[in-house]
């Protein structure tokens, strides 16, 4: 029963995704398509955090670090290679490698949640201040100048292995949307696999999992690395939609945003964080255009209110409400049935007498 509902949900998510994939560039203006591409790239970031936090129980406050590293690595590699195809691979690998190295130190040192959160947040903050100071011409990797707070102009994606033909913004959108759908179903598959089940049991009870003979550190490290790779992929798409990557991706505000998406959408689901990112992207850009409420003030209140009042996030709460209503309806129905049956039995009894 539950399984089929889950399958239904997955199929409908897939269909909605495909509809958006094909319909959006046809029906929207160019500017809207580009900003939707940005939103999609952020949704990939949210998905990666939703995976490692919601399923792996890894409290990473600096997931934007891997997102930014992916974006920077892509820009630098694409400039140096003169093409985007292998740059995409390199960027994902770099993001995953940084996550793996950092993860090794954190998980094999068995750092607690609070320490982990702080270390990851500090990583992104330090990247922010370091890259901001790289405006001088001496800071370059290959031929790519890091450009300090001005950032790097990102060469757009080209046709696979054909660097003379760049993709149009609509085509970049297709790529980003496919990346999102691909990562989403990868994550779904991962959480259903043996690896995913063990990861969830680590989240539930670390000591027990360890005593069953699972190497908890290794599982967490793998989860974190996959998360880093997906975040890196999001970063590549982000760099392409904006056309420029600046150190601002590493700042405190963006690190907080990623956390807020997941909190709002709901931990322990994969669609929740994606939903949270998309909603908040449009909400914050709307709030940014008017000057009634300061955006930080608004986000701060949202975060506090969710932690206090809706700690599970929107998607799990809605699902739970739906379940409860349905089960109430079901019990009402079965109660009616039971009453009717009871009556017949009484009648039968009466006949016997």
């Amino acid at each position: 029963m539950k399984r089929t509902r889950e399958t239904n949900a997955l199929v409908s998510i897939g269909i909605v995704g495909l509809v958006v994939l094909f319909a959006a560039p046809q029906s929207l203006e160019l500017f809207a398509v580009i900003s939707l591409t940005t939103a999609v790239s952020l949704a990939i970031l949210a998905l990666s955090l939703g995976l490692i936090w919601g399923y792996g129980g890894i409290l990473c406050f600096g997931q934007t670090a891997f997102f930014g590293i992916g974006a920077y690595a892509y820009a630098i590699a694409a400039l140096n290679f003169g093409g985007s195809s292998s740059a995409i691979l390199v960027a994902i690998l770099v993001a995953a490698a940084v996550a793996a190295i950092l993860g090794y130190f954190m998980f094999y040192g068995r750092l607690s949640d609070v320490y982990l959160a702080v270390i990851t947040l500090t990583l992104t903050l330090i990247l922010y201040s370091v890259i901001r100071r790289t405006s001088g011409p001496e800071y370059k990797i290959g031929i790519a100048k890091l450009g300090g707070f001005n950032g790097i102009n990102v060469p757009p994606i080209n046709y696979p292995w054909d660097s003379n033909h760049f993709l149009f913004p609509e085509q970049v959108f297709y790529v980003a949307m496919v990346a999102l759908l691909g990562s989403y179903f990868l994550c779904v598959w991962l959480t259903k696999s043996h690896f995913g089940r063990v990861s969830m049991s680590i989240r539930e009870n670390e000591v027990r999992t360890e005593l069953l003979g699972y190497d908890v550190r290794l599982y967490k490290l793998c989860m974190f690395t996959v998360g880093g790779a997906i975040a890196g992929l999001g970063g590549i798409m982000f760099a392409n939609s904006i056309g420029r990557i600046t150190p601002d991706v590493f700042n405190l505000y963006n690190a907080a945003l990623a956390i807020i998406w997941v909190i709002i959408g709901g931990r322990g689901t994969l669609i929740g964080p994606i939903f949270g990112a998309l909603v908040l992207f449009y909400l914050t850009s709307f709030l940014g255009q008017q000057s009634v409420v300061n955006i930080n003030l608004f986000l701060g209140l949202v975060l506090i209110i969710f932690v206090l009042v809706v700690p599970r996030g929107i998607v799990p709460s809605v699902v739970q409400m739906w379940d409860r209503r349905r089960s109430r309806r079901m019990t009402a129905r079965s109660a009616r049935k039971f009453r009717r049956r009871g009556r017949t039995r009484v009648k039968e009894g009466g006949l016997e007498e």
Partner: protein
Amino acid sequence: MLETRGLSMHFGGVVAVDRVDFSLRENELRCLIGPNGAGKSTFFKCLTAQLRPTAGDVVIRDFNVTGSESHQVARMGVGIKTQVPNVFDGLDVEENIWLSASQSTSVKRARVITTEVIDRLELGDVRKTQLGSLAHGQRQLVELGMVLAGEPWLVILDEPTAGMTQDEVVRTAEIIQEINRSATMIVVEHDMQFIRMIARKVTVFHQGRILIEGAMDEVSSDERVREVYLGQRKSA
């Protein structure tokens, strides 16, 4: 097959386990008893590599596990059950046991083992119930099932009957004797009645050391044991 040599564990100035030499033969069922604070649980944690001893060695089947990680010990084929029910509250009975089974074997075989274990422990009725909503004793039983599902050859249990009803205690004693047919066992307990049901050989801990070792009758008639343990029970 299991041996400790000069095993010591200090916490700051407190000596919880003091130079313990302990050895266990294949297929034995050994109970560790002793009053609260005798060092049983610390000893247990050293055996299972949850704590790294201050000094001394733990050797399991000729393999020195001192300084290993708990998961490595578990992986050697050692089934471990901790004092408090240590289960996955968010998962159902079947999933809990399956997780244990699938660590050491293929997914297919794990399913077979899971079904077997559930039948053996008569947990069929609650197969799909989340652990969080089970009674305390049943959770203990599930944890025992998780130990079984790993198909261990050495089983170390810390207070398996804590918080169980009388019926459940009897049932657990049966299960433990059944496990003992295929595995060597160490049971840490302080419920004397339960120990009488299962014990052949008993090791008594007192103040971090082994006070006496021997058959149950021998031990329970020993004057010193009466003094430190049974006497204390009576007064309590």
